[in-house]
């Protein structure tokens, strides 16, 4: 598995797309800091980018890589290698290189602009950690979609739909249901609904650091306990971790059952 991981990783590291992705973050980081001259403001803007763009790129990239390396995968499958290690290796290679581009691309400009002296360092590292988590989650989901669909167009379609649903439509439905049922106690529901979407979950995780004063404005015992203590942070982190593990397990299962 390690060999395949290494192969996929180096293959991607050498590929043009990784560089484009890396350069994109590098430029984004520099431009943000150049325009704002303030690390904490840049962190807020970056959050919007991260929770929207990372899932999108993760999904598209994952699907693309799987379809592109399909022949190579079939070649590998003919060898005496465990199936799970082939797919896991590829999965980890893709998500690892994407996460690396993200961390380096954003990390370099921020470090150069004196992040280490700034007190925003914790917010920023949290941003990178959630970003990496999101990369792993969405690459995993896209691999599952790609394995389940032989048809490339269909696979791409589903992947983009998945992103659109989780990034935009889900929040719309969520908002509608909150307004429709506003006469009922909704704090547990809204927290659970947040947990069920990895994008919302990472957003809340970052908000816990950035907008805590607004989040504490709502009178609800459960909210207060969740947002007012470390509980919220720990629970969100744990569930984000669970969200990372679940697609991996799903991928393993799919890979085992798949008939090539």
């Amino acid at each position, binding site marked *: 598995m390690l060999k395949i991981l290494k192969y996929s990783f180096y293959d991607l590291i050498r590929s043009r797309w990784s560089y484009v992705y890396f350069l994109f973050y590098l430029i984004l980081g520099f431009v943000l800091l150049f325009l704002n001259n303030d690390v*904490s403001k840049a962190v807020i803007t970056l959050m919007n980018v991260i929770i929207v763009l990372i899932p999108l790129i993760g999904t598209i990239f994952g699907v693309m890589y799987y379809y592109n390396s399909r022949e190579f995968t079939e070649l590998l499958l003919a060898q005496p290698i465990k199936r799970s290690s082939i797919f896991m290796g590829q999965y980890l290679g893709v998500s690892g290189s994407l996460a690396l581009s993200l961390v380096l691309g954003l990390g370099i400009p921020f470090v150069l602009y004196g992040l280490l002296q700034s007190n925003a360092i914790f917010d920023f590292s949290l941003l990178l950690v959630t970003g990496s988590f999101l990369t792993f989650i969405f690459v995993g989901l896209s691999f599952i979609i790609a394995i389940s669909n032989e048809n490339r167009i269909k696979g791409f379609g589903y992947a983009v739909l998945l992103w659109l649903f989780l*990034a935009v439509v889900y929040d719309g439905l969520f908002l509608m249901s909150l307004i429709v049922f*506003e006469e009922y106690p909704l704090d547990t529901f809204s927290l659970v609904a947040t947990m069920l979407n990895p994008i919302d979950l990472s*957003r809340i995780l970052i908000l816990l650091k950035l*907008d805590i004063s*607004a989040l*504490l*404005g709502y*009178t609800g015992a459960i909210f207060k306990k969740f947002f007012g203590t470390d509980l919220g942070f720990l629970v969100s982190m744990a569930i984000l971790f669970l969200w990372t593990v679940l697609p991996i397990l799903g991928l393993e299962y799919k890979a085992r059952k798949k008939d090539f």
Partner: protein
Amino acid sequence: MVLHNTYHRYLLCLLMLLLGHPMWAKTWTICPSCVDSTLKGTIARAQANDTLLVQKGTYREFEIIVDKPLVIKGIGYPIIDGGKKGEIFRIQSDNVTLDGLFIINVGVSYTKDNAAIRVVRSKNFLIQNMVLEQLFFGIYLEKSSHGKVFHNRIIGEAVDEYNSGNGIQLWYSTDIEVRKNHVQGTRDGIYLEFSDRITITENVSMDNLRYGLHFMFSNHDVYTRNTFENNGAGVAVMFSKFITMKDNTFHKNWGTAAYGMLLKEINDAEIVGNTFEENTIGINIEGSNRIQYTNNDFIGNGWAIRVIGACYTNSFKGNNFLYNSFDISYNSKLNDNVFEGNFWSSYTGYDLDRNGIGDVPYRPVKLFSYVVNRTPETIVLLRSLFMDIIDFSERVSPVFTPDNLKDTQPLMKIRP
């Protein structure tokens, strides 16, 4: 010669005056092992205008009534221990000075407002350098005037509102200066009721159960350069007129009903140069008219300004709004307030003629803040892409937010 005579006469007059007046007031020294070992006894023996020097030691006394003009001065912070039995000092005369005493153990009562120091119907008093601990009420000024409360330290251990008192309370008092005091851990740090022309300067009021500063029915008061931090509900200014609030700092007042400042039924006030940082709500305004908000900084608040209703002819000019989750929140479609020349960190317009003023008006009210007002749980959708899209479309063509609620001259650069 005539001139010389008048000069002599004046001198004589002055001499007689000095002799007639107890100029050589006696100084009494009180210490636990002296002849004068109690405050009460010495006060009874002393004449008006005498000075009492209280030496270091512990004095177990309460209900000490000061009924003549005296200077009571502690040396090395003598401890006056009230033994939780009742009130400790009660000043009932004009021209009394209390200085440098350490007062502890005020009796808690559910029927009487026991205070460490109560001033009743007196003028020209001076209370300074006192340390008050384990108290119920701290300094209670009742129908008094022209006094000064200076540089005191009031440390309470309030846990519940019903059995705790206020740090400094003014009731029907006028023309008083409250300066450089430090109040913490009481119910209301500084409380004013029916008190006019009070100056509150350079105080620190923190960690109080309810409000750091609380105004009720008090007019023409000025408070400047105070710091209010981490109070249960911030600062409340209610039912008062002509208040000036300048250069104060409101910091970290977090909670469901916590405000940097709560304004209710306030008219004709001036709010200038204050800093509101990391409060759940910076200023909560309700039924307040003709207020000038100028040169204030709102930094990292949940809501910088929340307008609840019936607020007319207010003007917001030259303020900085930096990284607040919501800049302004309204709950009605009517707007009669003016926003002009403020800096908004979330402003995205441009300045083609380079005059430092944005060419596109800024709309500080997001549609999302209406949604949150209606269904508070939706706060979990803060900063989501869906909400941003909706806010954007509302900003382009306002349907729900007041059409004229905008800053037509937003600053491009932060006001220094």
